[in-house]
């Protein structure tokens, strides 16, 4: 009985931490993004609300909540309202299996620094990520608006197309690690004879990066919400916090993908070097150092996201689809085959 | 991490026992590639390729027949015993005959030949696996494979509304039936704890370790059997699950109809027998009553409904339903003779039924009305090479003595008598007599004097008319005698020859059929 209480209390605490982490992450990534974009365009971003603009996200959130919310005439209200919630829900769920640090001994028990350490973690993640398309397509369809519908369809087609390559890219990692558990994959990268999978799997890394950008509808694959031609695509008819929820979902997905890249390809919470501070098995405070390393890697990748947005132009839709189906998919299969050959012979 | 090595325990002999299936699968891929890489029209190339692939598969099956095959291969999921091979022969022959009459169809109907033949081979692959499956999983996957291919083939002439209707109707209803079958399989698996047909039979016989004795009386078993029965009955068009059959047969392209009317039933009945008569043999009392009622309903409704048909394809559809009823009688006998009767029946049915469809297909592709029976008036004088074999098919389907149809029916009824089911046989004989009326009406129309130009085509023909062969004056000179295309010629005469030869010397094949049944019964521990 007490074991159950322990599990439930631990889960509730972890869940709240995950939700708060993602929320705070969302707020400060938007700020960060605007500041970096500003710098890259030789101007300042938002720096006036609070020191260094740090209160900007709070002001934004308040503004979104206090805006007038209208639901246009022909919308299917139930679906229209639940679509942003669904998007957000899926984005919150996805992070559940990411381990942010090594296990920690607390209150008489070794506890994972992941919300759930399930042995099919990667499969779970793929399943949840592919649910993300529902929020977008349902929102687009229920809006009864041409731009929305077109944006939603494009987004649906794009996300499912890139999911194929993404799935096969992750498969190559699974082959090398021999497990679907993210925890196990991090450990597998530090077994003798192994190294970070970014070096063993450069093609897989590339595929995950491209697929991750497409899955999160980020530049240069953001033409589903192309404001110049589609007025924002699927969220054309959404305003205020309802629109904010879609944005939240997008940024949380960015965080999940970045965390995934850090976990699967960049060695997770394990740092560079072999000194005493980095020794993951015995060093004191190693959990803290692990989390720091993890956040550093994740942050670097989020910076990369923003950098790409400032640099690359948006690609055309036909190019997008053909790139996904005719280049990425065969590439992923070839990568998978080579990896499988290597694994089966070793 | 310590990695245990898992040995894949599949030998070359395992692959050898599915060689016919592998040939078909490879051929299917080859045809798809030919379709996209060879430019231009390539009906001849693809037709020949398909025929060669089918011939190779036939040779491989023959070789397996000769050597006896493997009782269970690939981890006990498939078999290559003679029972499966016997049905493979039916399936391959009917596929080859259907392919033979397809080119004329493709050239008039403007569809893509490569895809078409690849789908035919896909359906053949599913059917062969269906006949060879020893596991519920394999059976279901095979069923889906053949069904999906047939859905598309039924609707292949996508610019003809009738064909669209056929494809769509078949898809909606049949996928529903697949679900029934799958639920039945699931419950059977739940009760017995195994998907292997052999293990299921040992479990129900009470021999298996860890299988509770209550399994045979479990309500889940009853429900499962009921659901499977519905699924199978639908797929082989047994009354009252036959509603789709006439519409689909009428709308689908004729070669496809020919193919599916025989081969699908052959494959499904092979699986039907394996699951019910072999695996569930020990609980015969659970399903015999239902089978009995289905058999009677099918024979009665099929034959009576056929009386009212004026369209040849619809008539053949109802005749197919009626024949499913006769086959059900043989199956209900649930003895070795009955099962070999089913195997023999399908070989006979292949020839006579597809022959009739070859006839229809030729008339359709030449633009001569085609499938309305009234338009066959006087066809004997225009084209005796077409009408004579057709008469043979009709006699054979009706079950007249020197033909294959007679012996098939005879053995089926004999098996039922042997098992003591005289009631079924009485109904069977009476309905067979009824069927003579509509089969011979077709013959009579063909041998009537050609209608005058102005004469109404739909002149009613008295159905009681005796076989009209004798009525034809020998001096009646044909007006024109167009040469048949070689493929129709070959197709129709092969079928006619088959229908006659199986009727004259059936004993050899009957022996083969009973040998095949003995082998498979031994596998399931039946006498």
């Amino acid at each position, binding site marked *: 009985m007490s074991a159950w209480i322990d599990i439930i209390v631990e889960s509730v605490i972890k869940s*709240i931490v995950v939700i708060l982490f993602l929320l705070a992450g969302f707020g400060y990534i938007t700020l960060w993004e605007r500041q970096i974009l500003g710098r890259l365009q030789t101007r300042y971003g938002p720096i006036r609300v609070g020191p260094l603009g740090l209160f900007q996200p709070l002001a934004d959130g308040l503004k979104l909540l206090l805006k*007038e919310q209208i639901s246009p005439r022909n919308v299917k209200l139930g679906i229209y309202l639940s679509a942003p919630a669904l998007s957000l829900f899926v984005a919150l769920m996805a992070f559940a299996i990411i381990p942010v640090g090594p296990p920690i001994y607390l209150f008489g028990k070794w506890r994972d620094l992941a919300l759930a350490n399930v042995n099919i973690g990667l499969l779970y993640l793929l399943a949840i990520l592919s649910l993300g398309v529902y929020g977008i397509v349902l929102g687009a369809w229920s809006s009864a608006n041409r731009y929305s519908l077109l944006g939603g369809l494009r987004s649906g087609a794009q996300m499912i197309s890139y999911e194929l390559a993404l799935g096969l890219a992750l498969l190559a990692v*699974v082959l090398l690690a021999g497990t679907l558990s993210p925890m196990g994959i991090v450990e597998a990268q530090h077994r003798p004879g192994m190294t970070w999978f970014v070096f063993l799997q450069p093609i897989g890394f590339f595929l995950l990066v491209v697929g991750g950008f497409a899955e999160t509808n980020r530049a240069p694959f953001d033409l589903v919400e192309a404001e110049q031609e589609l007025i924002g695509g699927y969220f054309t008819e959404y305003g*205020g916090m309802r629109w904010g929820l879609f944005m939240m979902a997008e940024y949380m997905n960015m965080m999940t993908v970045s965390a995934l890249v850090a976990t699967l390809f960049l060695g997770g919470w394990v740092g560079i070097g072999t000194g005493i501070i980095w020794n993951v098995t015995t060093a004191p405070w190693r959990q803290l150092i692990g989390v720091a390393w993890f956040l550093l890697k994740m942050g670097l990748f989020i910076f990369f996201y923003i950098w790409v947005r400032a640099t690359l132009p948006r690609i055309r839709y036909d190019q997008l689809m053909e790139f996904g189906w005719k280049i990425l998919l065969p590439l992923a299969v070839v990568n998978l085959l080579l990896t499988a050959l290597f694994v089966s012979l070793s | 991490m310590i990695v245990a090595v898992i040995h894949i325990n599949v030998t070359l002999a395992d692959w050898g026992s599915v060689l016919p299936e592998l040939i078909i699968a490879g051929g299917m891929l080859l045809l798809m590639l030919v379709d996209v890489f060879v430019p231009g029209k390539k009906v001849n190339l693809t037709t020949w390729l398909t025929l060669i692939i089918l011939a190779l598969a036939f040779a491989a099956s023959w070789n397996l027949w000769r050597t006896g095959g493997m009782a269970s291969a690939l981890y006990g999921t498939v078999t290559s015993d003679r029972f499966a091979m016997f049905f493979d022969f039916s399936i391959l022959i009917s596929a080859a005959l259907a392919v033979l009459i397809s080119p004329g169809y493709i050239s008039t109907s403007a569809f893509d030949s490569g895809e078409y033949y690849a789908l035919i081979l896909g359906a053949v692959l599913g059917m062969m696996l269906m006949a060879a499956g020893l596991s519920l999983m394999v059976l279901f996957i095979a069923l889906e494979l053949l069904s999906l291919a047939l859905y598309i083939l039924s609707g292949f002439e996508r610019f003809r509304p009738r064909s669209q209707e056929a494809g769509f109707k078949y898809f909606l209803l049949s996928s529903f039936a697949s679900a029934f079958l799958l639920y039945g399989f699931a419950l059977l698996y739940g009760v017995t704890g195994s998907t292997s047909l052999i293990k299921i039979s040992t479990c129900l016989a009470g021999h298996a370790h860890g299988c509770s004795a209550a399994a045979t009386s479990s309500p889940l078993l009853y429900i499962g059997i009921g659901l499977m029965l519905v699924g199978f009955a639908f797929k082989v068009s047994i009354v009252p699950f036959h509603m789709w059959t006439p519409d689909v047969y009428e709308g689908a392209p004729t070669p496809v109809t020919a193919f599916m009317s025989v081969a699908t039933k052959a494959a499904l009945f092979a699986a039907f027998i394996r699951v019910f008569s072999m695996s569930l043999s020990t609980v015969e009392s659970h399903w015999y009553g239902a089978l009995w009622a289905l058999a009677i309903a099918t024979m009665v409704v099929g034959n009576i409904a056929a009386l009212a048909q004026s369209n040849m394809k619809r008539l053949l559809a109802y005749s197919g339903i009626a024949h499913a009823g006769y086959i059900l009688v043989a199956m209900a006998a649930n003895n070795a003779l009955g099962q070999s009767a089913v195997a023999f029946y399908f070989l006979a049915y292949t020839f006579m039924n597809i022959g009739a469809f070859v006839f229809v297909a030729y008339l359709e592709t030449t633009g001569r009305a085609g499938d309305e029976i009234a338009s066959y008036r006087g066809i004997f004088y225009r084209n005796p090479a077409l009408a004579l074999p057709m008469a043979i098919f009709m006699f054979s389907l009706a079950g007249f003595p020197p033909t294959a149809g007679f012996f098939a029916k005879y053995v089926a009824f004999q098996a039922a008598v042997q098992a003591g089911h005289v009631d079924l046989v009485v109904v069977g004989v009476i309905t067979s007599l009824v069927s003579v009326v509509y089969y011979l009406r077709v013959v009579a129309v063909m041998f009537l004097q050609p209608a005058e130009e102005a004469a109404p085509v739909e002149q009613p023909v008295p159905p009681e008319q005796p076989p009209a062969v004798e009525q034809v004056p020998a001096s009646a000179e044909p007006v024109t005698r167009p040469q048949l295309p070689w493929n129709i010629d070959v197709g129709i005469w092969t079928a006619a020859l088959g229908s006659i030869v199986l009727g004259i010397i059936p004993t050899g094949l009957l022996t083969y059929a009973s040998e095949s049944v003995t082998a498979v019964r031994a596998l399931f521990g039946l006498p």
Partner: protein
Amino acid sequence: MLTDYVPILILSLLAGGFAATNVIATLITGPYRPTREKLSPYESGMTEIQPPKQRFPVKFYVIAMLFLLFDIEGVSFYPWAIILKALRFPGFIEMLIFLAFLAVGYIFIWKKGALDW
């Protein structure tokens, strides 16, 4: 073990509650002064002539079907990937056969133009 999934269940409750609260909050907070024009669908300033017909190019259907096919095939790789080390080289060959089927289908749809946008 099933207890591994308890955290996910709890997270789903909390996350669902959070998302729902946000949506409900949008119904309460903020002013609400609708006018006829405000509630019309956004058409870049044009008057809406008719609501969009809910029909769209068949290409999207094709893509969706192909996705289903390839995604299912992709998922069927996962169990194999985990035990490939134990299966050794024969396991690789077996999957190669499976992949050959997939490859022919892929070449077929490519050549038929299903992937051209």
